[in-house]
């Protein structure tokens, strides 16, 4: 076994998240790949249950896995809610001060350790240190993986801003847990079989941090925003880091001010971004159209959560795709991207800035709560090989005549002047305008300008629009996903391969414009195509069917959809693929979780 999946569960406020954080940081800093998942209730400190799952491995993984090897439960409710996530033969470690003898069917196949976690914590520190005792216990159970010192370093780092006394008592609690596991637990589990070799130095960060860092690296020096879960960390991180490199973070009165301030800053020559979630994204619609019409580079991040309205503020969903593609009134170019994991948050944010600058359009980055909130390992950044694009500036030494801001060029891209540039004065406007910025409703000019703006997307299509494929080219079964569901899909394709199914996955790198040629090529030989999304209406599928109307072939389309606030695991995706393939002979199936729609092209 060269991976380990641990789940820690308890009531919000019991330190579940902080112990998960420390665990994942220590593992990453010890040289292993780490993927994490946290679920927590909306209330900061209510009765709600929360859980943290982490997967430590020798090689990169895309998801946090489905069943855990170890489950630590702080109370009975945590046991009840989470025991179904434990592997058969896995370890359930409970606080025996809170949880009584466990019996019944669900506990038959698992190994139970009853440890008086509360008492140990009280003896060496205080009740609050229960979470440190429990990570000490796990560290003791996997002592063949040398992480003990790194654990202590990360506990110190985590509590660095507190008193020496608090740091000490947390370390003591950790040591006590470690000691207890090493000396008192009569071991009859499989954890000793885990062996992992290290895979070199990496960074570890959350998706939101990766977006903020990506922005900084791409050259963003202005951020404006309004707090909203689950996007706020982007703003908080940039508030701290942007001024260090001379940038500005402005907290605005609402999302309309946030996006328009970013547009103002970008008009002024500074790369600018705003980030939000669904409700704020809705408010930004009109201004995104302004950026399109006035051709001002802009990056808008939507860390999606469950909608509509206030919806599920802390839960992940992929339901803003339609809004990102079609949301603003009127028609005009914009680019929509979605990161598939934390590493990709970093990459796609840099892409977002590069495309915004290159094509002078708004770029929307559709992240979500799942990827935004989880920590993962990210490759070290090779600054020398990074490609950073800056907007095509008006150059008076080459073009000394009258400056024509919206010149109708072949590529659609016109050189842009910045306030302060002599001879570049122009009026940016949301009104339809001539090449010289004058308002017009002349039908010829209107037509020319609509086409000029859209031509930038055609140029973009040739320059960077693509998709990635995974799995054998001769597969008759295809699976398509976007953004954060892709990780589970790729792992499911591997699982399917082990069961003898030949499946090929495809995930677009841009959602708008869609990589049509890639899709058509992918669909050409497929008989069954399954689309996986975290929404109810299969938004990508509908866009895809609409866009790829030139396919003249009967393909059976299936949907794997989830919209209950939890995220699809690779196991779930695999199970549903398996079911679809088995039911395939049925013409039209309607069951709770798998719907088949037949699309005729």
């Amino acid at each position, binding site marked *: 076994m060269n991976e380990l999946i641990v789940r820690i569960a308890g009531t919000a406020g019991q330190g579940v998240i902080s112990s998960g954080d420390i665990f994942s940081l220590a593992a990453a800093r010890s040289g292993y790949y780490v993927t994490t998942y946290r679920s927590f209730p909306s209330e900061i400190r209510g009765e709600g249950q929360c859980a943290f799952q982490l997967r430590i491995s020798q090689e990169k993984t895309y998801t946090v896995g489905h069943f855990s090897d170890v489950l630590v439960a702080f109370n009975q409710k945590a046991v009840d809610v989470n025991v179904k996530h434990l592997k058969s033969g896995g370890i359930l470690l409970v606080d025996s001060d809170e949880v009584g003898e466990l019996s019944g069917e669900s506990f038959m196949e698992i190994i139970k350790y009853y440890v008086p976690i509360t008492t140990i914590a009280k003896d060496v520190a205080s009740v609050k240190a229960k979470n440190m005792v429990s990570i000490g216990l796990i560290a003791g159970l996997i002592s063949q993986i040398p992480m003990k010192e790194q654990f202590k370093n990360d506990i110190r780092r985590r509590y660095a801003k507190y008193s020496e006394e608090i740091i000490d008592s947390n370390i003591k609690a950790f040591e006590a847990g470690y000691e207890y596991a090493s000396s008192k637990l009569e071991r009859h589990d499989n954890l000793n079989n885990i062996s992992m070799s290290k895979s070199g130095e990496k960074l570890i960060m959350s998706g939101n941090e990766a977006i903020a*860092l990506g922005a*900084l690296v791409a050259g963003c020096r202005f951020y404006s925003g309004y707090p909203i879960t689950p996007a706020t960390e982007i703003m908080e991180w940039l508030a701290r880091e942007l001024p260090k490199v001379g940038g500005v973070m402005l907290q605005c009165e609402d999302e309309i001010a946030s996006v328009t301030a970013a547009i103002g800053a970008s008009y002024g020559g500074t790369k600018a971004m705003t980030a939000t979630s669904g409700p704020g994204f809705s408010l930004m619609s009109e201004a995104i159209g302004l950026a399109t019409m006035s051709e001002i580079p802009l990056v808008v991040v939507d860390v999606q959560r469950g909608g509509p309205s206030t919806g599920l503020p802390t839960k992940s969903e992929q339901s803003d795709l339609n809004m990102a593609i079609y949301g603003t009134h009127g028609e005009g170019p914009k680019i929509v991207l979605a990161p598939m994991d934390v590493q990709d948050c970093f990459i796609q944010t840099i892409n977002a800035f590069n495309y915004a600058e290159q094509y002078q359009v708004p770029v929307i980055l559709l992240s979500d709560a799942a990827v935004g909130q989880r920590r993962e390992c990210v490759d070290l950044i090779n600054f020398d090989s990074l490609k950073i694009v800056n907007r095509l500036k008006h150059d008076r030494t080459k073009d000394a005549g009258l400056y024509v801001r919206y010149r109708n060029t072949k590529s659609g891209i016109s050189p842009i002047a910045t306030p302060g540039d002599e001879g570049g004065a122009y*009026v*940016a406007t949301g009104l339809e305008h001539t090449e010289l910025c004058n308002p017009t409703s002349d039908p010829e000019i209107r037509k020319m300008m609509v086409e000029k703006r859209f031509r930038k997307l055609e140029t973009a299509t040739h320059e960077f629009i693509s998709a990635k494929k995974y799995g054998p080219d001769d597969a008759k079964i295809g699976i398509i996903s976007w953004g954060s569901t892709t990780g589970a899909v790729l792992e499911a394709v591997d699982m399917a391969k082990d069961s003898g199914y030949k499946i090929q996955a495809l995930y677009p790198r841009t959602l708008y414009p869609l990589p049509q040629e890639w899709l058509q090529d992918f669909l050409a030989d497929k008989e069954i195509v399954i689309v996986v999304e975290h929404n109810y209406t299969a938004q990508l599928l509908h866009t895809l069917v609409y866009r790829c109307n030139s396919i003249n072939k009967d393909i059976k389309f299936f949907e794997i959809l989830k919209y209950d606030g939890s995220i699809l695991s690779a196991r779930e995706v695999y199970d549903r693929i398996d079911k679809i393939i088995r039911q395939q002979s049925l013409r039209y199936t309607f069951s709770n979780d798998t719907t088949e729609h037949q699309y005729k092209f």
Partner: protein
Amino acid sequence: MTEYKPNDYKSAVKPSWCPGCGDYSVLNALMGAMADLNLNPADTTIVSGIGCSSRFPFFTSTYGFHSIHGRALPVAIGLKSANPKINVITVGGDGDGFSIGGNHFIHASRKNPNITYIVMDNEIYALTKGQNSPTSHEIVTKVSPYMSVEERVNPVMMALSFNTSFVARGFSGDVVQLKDLITQAISHRGFSFVHVLSPCMQYNDKITYDSVKEKIRPVPENHNLSDRIAGMQLVLEVGTYYTGVIYKQERPTLGDKLNEVKAKSQANLPVDFSVRDIVKQFS
């Protein structure tokens, strides 16, 4: 150094306003003020929202941003914060500034960016052909065919209550005074607001050059410009519009504070600090 004349700020575009529209006076006053201050048009941006008055940027030779309805202020603040060397002048109408964009006026006052905000108040939505605005008197319009049902806001009182750091009122019928007020406003370090009573020839006969002329009086000579309460008392006087500077307070601007934030964040950083160093926190 170039010496700019008012006409140097004129663009090739002929204003689209109706003959007699109060906004012409504001354009002339602003061009005069920019000449008096010798602002380089290339270093100056006029930002507006949507409305008759917001057409303004097309008529000047400076940079311009004709944005969307009600959002001129945040656009201007973003521009100024990112590019502090630009002189930013924001213009618009009463509907743009006190209705759809009203919230931004509060927060611009709180932020105190070093920009100027000129509102041409014709007490009507003119571009949309005459509907009640937040400053309309009791008027019959197509959307209030029987009567108006809302009260008016007093924009100068709003500014004083938000503690806008420079507050003045002018009148399109007095370009000389208006030019002086705009010059002072642009010279003020901080968020300066100039409320201009600016008649519309088409859609509102409740505010005409004659009717305003009857009601205006200069701010008394002995008025204490730093006394906000005294300013409010002037403004609340029924039946009189005091014109002139009403309130002025020197305080740190948004730019000053952003510089302070930068200085604090950089206090303990090595001189060659760069983004590469920021990455280290993730290892």
